[in-house]
């Protein structure tokens, strides 16, 4: 998402990330990774519950081949986990919302290596208003 942030901003949209952990961990993530968009902390899972973000059993988290392969790919690409947060079994999700309370797209990850297609996310953004 960071690699396409300029394009997203040019289209009049914003990115907001929500994670688990503490404000301190979020601040370290923003500084270390030079994250250009707002990062929020949902340590009590209120937002995750409202968004129906999935959770996964620990056994499946540890044994799912797709998750293990995804973790291996991420490590090989140089990604590292700063802090797992309180709910390591919470999966990710991606939504496109707005303007207003309009849900345009949702992808609820099915396993830890499952992510929304960036092309699908960008396609869900409304066309910029004509000048």
């Amino acid at each position: 998402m960071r690699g396409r942030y300029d394009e997203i901003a040019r289209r009049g949209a914003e990115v907001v990330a929500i994670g688990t952990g503490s404000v301190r961990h979020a601040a370290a993530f923003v500084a270390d990774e030079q994250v250009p968009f707002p990062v929020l902390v949902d340590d009590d899972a209120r937002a995750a519950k409202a968004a129906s973000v999935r959770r996964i059993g620990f056994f499946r988290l540890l044994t799912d081949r797709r998750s293990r392969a995804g973790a291996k790919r991420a490590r090989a690409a140089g990604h590292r986990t700063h802090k797992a947060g309180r709910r390591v079994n919470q999966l990710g999700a991606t939504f496109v919302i707005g303007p207003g309370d309009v849900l345009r797209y949702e992808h609820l990850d099915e396993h830890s290596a499952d992510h929304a297609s960036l092309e699908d996310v960008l396609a869900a953004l409304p066309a910029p208003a004509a000048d």
Partner: protein
Amino acid sequence: MDVRQLADLELPDSTGAPRRLGDFWAERPVILVFLRHFG
């Protein structure tokens, strides 16, 4: 997923300041990403 319920939630940002979620998408589209972890 209930967007209005989500919109009314207030969460701290990386500076600790409270941010109402609905304010982000009131006037423009937002790509909202739930991360499994920071980093």
